[in-house]
């Protein structure tokens, strides 16, 4: 064998090991969601999956059925609805507000522009848990603890900086001349924005929205402090609730993990292309 061939084999070997380390933990959790409790607890371990079923999902979403571990103590369906309500509403508001801001930063020059931009971005550096303490004090006084509304406005604030950052970049890529031509033809500034610049930035704004949704969907530190009951707890807090039980229900938790991962899975796949460019531009080109 030549040196080059050995090299090639080593590269492929490394790649295979890498893929295994990356994929196996997640796939193992997903597989466990469909396995019976006895197989998960079995010793020696049962490696070949058998008796796969949707039992855990039925128990979790629609209450206990025969042969399961009894009615799930965690009201997953309520959490699921909360998760969707909070994530969707906070995303829509953040995208509207953030796109307005991003457009202003891309198209206008004003005094202290860079300072404002940096100031907006700096709000993202505050750790969630640090922000949750004063929000807890504030919300307790004005009655927003444990409400969807309270958590939605917090998530809007979390998502705005990134939306501004992304949409600013997307609007910059659209030549200014296009809206200027439209305006000399008699469009108002708003019409030019609505009919020309917005449609061109559409895919960029959509991916900003997906990022915002994922941040809301995945957030834990703040919602775990501000949510107290089924009124506003989300799925991530629900997963934590499982660990507080006396006996850890592994298959149940795995099933909930699958429910949490599915939307993230689909959405990340959709923004894949924008992921790298979204993260790097502005960073390299300046």
């Amino acid at each position, binding site marked *: 064998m030549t040196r080059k061939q050995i090299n090639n084999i080593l590269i492929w070997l490394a790649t295979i090991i890498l893929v295994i380390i990356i994929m196996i*933990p997640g796939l193992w959790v997903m597989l466990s969601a469909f396995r019976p409790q006895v197989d998960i607890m079995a010793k020696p371990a049962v490696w070949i999956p058998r008796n796969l079923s949707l039992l855990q999902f039925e128990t979790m979403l629609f209450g206990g059925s025969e042969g399961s571990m009894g009615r799930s103590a965690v009201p997953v369906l309520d959490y699921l609805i909360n998760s969707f309500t909070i994530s969707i509403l906070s995303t829509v508001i953040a995208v509207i507000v953030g796109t307005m801001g991003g457009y202003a*930063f891309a198209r206008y020059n004003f005094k202290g522009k860079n300072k404002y931009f940096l100031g*907006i971005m700096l709000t993202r550096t505050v750790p*969630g848990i*640090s922000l949750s303490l004063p929000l807890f004090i504030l919300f307790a006084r004005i009655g927003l603890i444990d409400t969807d509304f309270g958590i939605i406005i917090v998530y809007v604030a979390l998502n705005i900086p990134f939306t501004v950052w992304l949409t600013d970049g997307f609007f910059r890529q659209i030549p200014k001349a296009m809206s200027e031509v439209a305006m000399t033809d008699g469009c108002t500034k708003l019409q030019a924005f609505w009919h020309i610049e917005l449609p061109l930035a559409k895919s960029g704004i959509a991916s900003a929205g997906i990022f915002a949704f994922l941040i809301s969907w995945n957030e834990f530190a703040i919602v775990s402090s501000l949510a107290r009951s089924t009124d506003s707890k989300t799925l991530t807090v629900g997963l934590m609730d499982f660990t507080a039980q006396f006996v850890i229900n592994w298959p149940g938790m795995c099933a909930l993990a699958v429910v949490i991962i599915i939307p993230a899975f689909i959405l990340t796949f959709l923004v894949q292309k924008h992921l*790298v460019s979204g993260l790097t531009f502005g960073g390299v080109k300046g």
Partner: protein
Amino acid sequence: MKKFYNGPWVLILPTIIILVCIVFLPLVISLWTSFTPYKLLRPDTIYKFIGLRNYQRIFNDLDFWVAFGRTVLFLAIALNVELVIGLGIALLINKITIGQRLLRTLIMFPMMFSPILVGFQWKYIFNDNIGLLNNFLREFGVIDPIPWLVQGNLALFSIIAAEAWSSTSVFAILLLAGLLGIPRDPIEAARVDGCNAWQVFQNITLPFLMPFIFIAMTIRSLDVARAYDIVQMMTGGGPARRTELLWTLVARTGYVDAKMGLANAMSYISIFLSIAFTFFFFYKLMQSRQQLSYD
């Protein structure tokens, strides 16, 4: 008034109002509270000013400094491991010509997992009784289960492993984007002039990658506090506080012990830590960008 409606401010105002109400105002409340002995069970204590006494207490508190030191150590190890492995993965994928796109997608797999899911997944894998890892080791004759999350140092190691699994792909993806953008000419010229692979990497590849490394570091340092979710899920700061990080200590002091004043003082220190990390890497990014344009 007409000028206001045509200017940028009407567009930026909603952003600013929301951020002031939800971030800046709470931070002011937080700062004030850190100067009071505020306890959740005695609401009137929020009006009592005690100056810097909370900060004094923190500075003399060994538990705090241990958690602080552990947090810095944790970040130093995690970020370096992520950078080195991420760079390795990027270089590896850069070499592969068939199936590169597919591999790139596979590498993004951990990015789909929220920190709480990463925590759960590794709590399950590292479980000493039924975890995948110990089951796997048993097949190779390791009969005594290894107490991954039960023994202090092992638990911290396990958490770093989980953290590295979840964040390495950010580095790999960004550095790969950087590698793909490197012009071929200087590399080939160096080869012709007799440079070996290491010299090419050190003198050409690495300087080009530097801005990408610092972008990845800056993005990463923005959410270092995601470790809170992972730790809370995997160990809750235990066993016997051996995996307590700054953020879990803040949560425990504030919500479990209900000492809000003290917790807010600690949380201010954690905020400065985050800002310091971000600023450091952002500054480095600007510097390396300038250097690249001078060369």
